């Protein structure tokens, strides 16, 4: 768990460096080696590691637009994920998906960049497990900003009425971009949403990996034992802006400072020390994580970019012949912008 967390933190620090390259001095979101939006999850690591510790490769996870820490904890191929973020041919999605759309079927991991829209597919994975009498479970991650969205509420109800093996994990980082939680919902505890659908709901109020681990053990166990879904809300914190380039002018300085005080990685390190793990061992874990990250980034940067014409592939698994002309028309060749 500690290793997953320090890997995620270091990974994102390095991504941030790479992302900003070519975006200085003037920040241009479309420039540099990693273009597009980048939503970093520094401060969320405990939610990824604490829940995914209980999961196997055959368990499904759907993550939202801030997916890296969950992907790492779920065991997504780090090299291919990195290549995807750099938009390379050997990335998880051959460069078609990008950082919000990471798919690794080997470990049943998927993302969606649309708020709460990962919930229904997780319910579907739970439904498939139930129909096939396996003991696989599904976990849908969303942010606290998503608990007001229809897709989430409808999914809670369907999972409950069908007793499906699904755990809904709400990562509460206090902010939906610029909107604080109290401005968009009247409940302090998002797990209260469970009551209306008659399923168990629990909130972990502290940024603490061990507490999240314990709560997730119970929720995942319930799903695995065919005892239905659980809604779990866990407190995390947002150490950065919503996306790289977010000026965060809406955010009080003290809020950001307070978030940085709540470092779940440091808290877990203290716990481990209290349980007799020495610093050398922690350093060793950290070094190993950092090496792995460096290796993944170096590898990814060495990978070839996709061919422009690759854009025309993969719309269908079974492309219709002669129905839709998906070839670039003869007179129109590559873009130049």
């Amino acid at each position: 768990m500690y290793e997953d967390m320090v890997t995620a933190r270091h990974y994102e620090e390095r991504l941030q460096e790479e992302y900003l390259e070519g975006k200085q001095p003037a920040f241009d979101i479309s420039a540099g080696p990693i273009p597009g939006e980048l939503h970093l999850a520094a401060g969320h690591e405990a939610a990824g590691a604490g829940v995914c510790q209980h999961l196997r490769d055959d368990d499904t996870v759907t993550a939202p637009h801030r997916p890296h820490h969950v992907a790492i904890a779920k065991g997504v191929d780090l090299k291919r994920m990195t290549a995807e973020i750099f938009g390379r041919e050997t990335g998880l999605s051959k460069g078609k998906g990008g950082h919000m759309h990471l798919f690794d079927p080997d470990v049943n991991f998927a993302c969606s960049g649309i708020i709460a829209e990962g919930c229904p597919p997780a319910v579907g994975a739970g439904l498939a497990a139930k129909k096939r009498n396996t003991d696989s479970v599904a976990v849908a991650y969303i942010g606290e900003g998503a608990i007001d969205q229809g897709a989430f509420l409808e999914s809670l109800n369907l999972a409950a009425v069908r007793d499906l093996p699904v755990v809904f994990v709400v990562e509460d980082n206090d902010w939906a971009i610029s909107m604080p939680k109290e401005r968009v919902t009247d409940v302090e505890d998002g797990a209260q949403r469970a009551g209306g659908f008659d399923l168990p709901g629990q909130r972990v109020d502290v940024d603490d990996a061990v507490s999240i681990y314990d709560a997730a053990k119970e929720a995942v166990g319930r799903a695995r034992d065919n005892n239905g879904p659980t809604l779990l809300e866990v407190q995390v914190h947002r150490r950065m802006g919503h996306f790289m380039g977010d000026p965060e002018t809406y955010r009080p300085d003290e809020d950001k400072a307070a978030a940085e005080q709540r470092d779940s990685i440091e808290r877990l390190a203290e716990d481990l020390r209290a349980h007799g793990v020495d610093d050398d061992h922690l350093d060793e874990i950290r070094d190993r994580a950092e090496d792995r990250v460096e290796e993944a980034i170096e590898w990814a940067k060495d990978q070839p970019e996709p061919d422009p014409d690759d854009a025309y592939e993969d719309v269908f698994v079974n492309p219709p012949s002669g129905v839709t002309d998906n070839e670039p028309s003869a007179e129109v060749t590559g873009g130049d912008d």
Partner: protein
Amino acid sequence: MAQQEEGAARQTDRSLTMSRAMVEAIAHEMRENDEVFYMGEDVADYGGIFDSTEGLLDEFGHDRIMDVPISETAYIGAAVGAAQQGMRPIAELMFVDFFGVGMDQIYNQMAKNTYMSGGNVSVPMVLTAAVGGTYNDAAQHSQTLYGTFAHLPGMKVVVPSTAYDAKGLMHNAIRDDDPVVYLFHKRLMGIGWLPAPDGPKTGVPEDDYTIPFGSADVKREGEDVTVVTLGLHVHRAMEAAESLADDGIDAEVVDLRTLVPLDMETVRESVAKTGRLVVVDEDYRSFGVTGEIVARTAEEGLGDLEAVERVAVPDVPIPYARPMEDEVIPGVEDISQAVQNAHQE
């Protein structure tokens, strides 16, 4: 046509970004009418992710510039309900790509209630949304979906390409008694972190003025080939036209400005003059804007047509990686090539 109506209003030394011009129109309407208000995600303290409401909170406060939960069905539907009560809400869908999470309220309620009530109910609201790619935001954050909204009856669809047009069209949108979908291209807004091309920042009069819907604007006059386009691609077409002029091809660039209603008269007049039509947009190629313009031009004046070309996004979701995105989103070179082809036919 529209140019004559607007006349000297364009002559102004004060130039604004497109987002400032939009905001200026909204602020003016809000001052004039207490029943105009704005709802959306991150529109208050943030000022709109794409600067669509920058500065409005300071003047109007949280009651009229309303941050709403991430619940598009609820707040877009609430705009419909408030509009039916006679208010004039503006609801923002942060990215047009998110339309799916609130579409029923948009096309089954907002767009149809007037018709289903036999004209007894009006829905005077504006739905704003950011559209477009070119910055590698991948398949769920880069679409324009122009054709989707224009295809479904009951919505007026506005796509400005300059600050001047954006302000006049916004005034008209808020004052219109029907639902208006106002699609602004992120690349044109003049956002600090997403540089705009030269072109959208134009002179904008301080006073209010309206640009009537259904009045296309000839952004560049030419004799040889008609290029019909909208949004970001107006500027790409202009750039292509300038470079083609060096090769002796004189292209006319028609900016549609609104898709519903559609000013076919201006298109027809241009094609009657040039005989050659190139339609360019940033939407999917099939069953969309480009096909519609070609079909209507053919229906109404087949005899004038000597050559037709379409430049659009092929029928694939927008890919993430730069080489592939550049491949599918029409560039200046693609437009130039199509104009040359049309010219040679």
